[in-house]
């Protein structure tokens, strides 16, 4: 992360233009969020309400559950891709990687056609069970949101994980195997410790991204599942309550920046460990 990128460059005066862009697009707008929130006396009013606390709780539980899911799914898929690849596994792994380039709401919409109340899975189950009630009703709850976010953010763990797996010396695995270690022992004793840095880095990035996720929740519109980003939209655009929206935004930005600090700390720690 802190690898040197020194060399011949433009002088400091060239910073003026990018700094102006940063100022106009991010700093000035965010700087005005605070006085707007404080001017309305909003933080005190907002943070004590049950709807704000419910949104904060939803944000945290969804982000933690989705991140855990991402780590587990990436581990399971990564182990098969790297150590027991089926024909075409490389192609499948690259295809999953392109999901990073797609907008998150695309995955949410795709899920409605598969798991929605009129989706393929439910229609097939209804025909099979001779019933008119859709048997799978999880999509429009927080479980549906969590599952979609797992699909969206798993590539962010899988990519560094496969890179870490590629670094493992096959001779080490063969040695362990010839000494009589079973596959589980090898996974626990050699592969998982080697993958831990990638899991930590990918996992903390997932946590940051899931806390700020908007598109998935907006498209699924799960009843009663309001997170902080969704609450900001509701307050500002539906209720025109800018002070309240700004107060929620302050909380969301603070949470997000703390997670970013955590992510950077994990990366720095790992880089330091790698240097030793």
């Amino acid at each position: 992360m802190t690898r040197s990128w020194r060399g011949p460059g433009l002088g400091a005066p060239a910073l003026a233009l990018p700094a102006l862009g940063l100022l106009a697009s991010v700093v000035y707008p965010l700087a005005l969020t605070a006085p707007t929130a404080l001017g309305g006396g909003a933080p005190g009013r907002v943070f004590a309400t049950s709807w704000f606390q419910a949104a904060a709780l939803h944000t945290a539980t969804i982000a933690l559950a989705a991140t855990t899911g991402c780590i587990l799914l990436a581990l399971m898929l990564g182990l098969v891709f790297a150590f027991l690849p089926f024909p075409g596994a490389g192609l499948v792994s690259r295809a999953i990687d392109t999901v990073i380039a797609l907008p998150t709401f695309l995955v949410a919409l795709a899920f409605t056609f598969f798991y929605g109340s009129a989706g393929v899975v439910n229609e097939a189950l209804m025909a099979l069970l001779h019933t008119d009630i859709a048997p799978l009703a999880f999509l429009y709850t927080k479980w549906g949101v969590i599952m979609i976010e797992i699909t969206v953010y798993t590539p962010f763990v899988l990519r560094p994980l496969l890179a870490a797996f590629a670094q493992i010396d096959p001779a080490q695995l063969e040695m362990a195997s010839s000494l009589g270690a079973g596959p589980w022992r090898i996974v626990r004793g050699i592969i998982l410790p080697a993958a831990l840095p990638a899991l930590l880095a990918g996992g903390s990035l997932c946590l940051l991204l899931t806390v700020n996720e908007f598109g998935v929740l907006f498209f699924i519109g799960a009843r009663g599942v309001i997170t902080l980003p969704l609450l900001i939209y509701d307050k500002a655009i539906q209720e025109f309550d800018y002070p309240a929206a700004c107060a929620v935004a302050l909380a969301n930005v603070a949470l997000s920046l703390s997670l970013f600090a955590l992510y950077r700390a994990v990366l720095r720690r790992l880089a330091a460990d790698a240097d030793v």
Partner: protein
Amino acid sequence: MTTLFAGRETRPVRFALWGAAWLLLLVFYAGPLLLIVLASFAGQWNGALPSHLTWRHYGQALTGDQAGSLWASLATGMIASTAALALGTTAALALRGARPAWQRIGSLAFYLPSAVPTVSVGLGLLVAYSRRPVLLNGTVAIVVLAHLAIVSAFAFGAVQAGLARLPPEYEDVAAGLGARRFYLLRRVTLPLLAPYLGAAFNLAFALSMGELAATIMVYPPGWVTMPISIFALTDRGDTFEGAALTVILAAATLLVLGGVARVVARAGGRARKDRRAR
């Protein structure tokens, strides 16, 4: 590299593990993503699968109220990504010669916006540019500014990562032969950097095409980007048209990314040939 079982796994074990992986891939990826493509072609869909297929939704998605949204998205993406690339490259090159402490502070400042929730960026722009001294609310400029805010950090990060990977020998040799700084930057550094600049633009453009959270806070009625159009369609029940427009959005994004990658690869090849010829 089937070393986990040292090639001694029995066939039932291998097929059981493959079966589990395939099931996970189907449940999380293949099933939903294939279905959205199928839905975009669905003529009538009452049972488990559509009864017949049609191109109709694509026609409607590109001619109805949404006709302008492909253009709005492409234009916003191109302007914001080009600006982000120019600003990000300038910032990375300007910081490159600075002292380490300034480098750290500078790169943190340019990279930090990537950690700010995008809805909050949208809200901030809405609040800041709905009042004096600068009134931009209701204009296209505020949408472009929102996209610029969101993609700039990623473009900067990609250029900086590229600079860290440049082999230093070429620049050292050119400097040793007495090349002036701007000549060196133009003839050595930037050609070497070209693939990373392409990657930075790709990333910025892909993010901009799919941007929803900040755009929905600030967009004026006449400049509806594709993600917002798609939401409007699905929200009023035109789900197949929404699926068609989503597939167009994904295809357009991947197409532009592929095209840019080819151009950069060719430029890189030419630069290498130039150097060899000289």
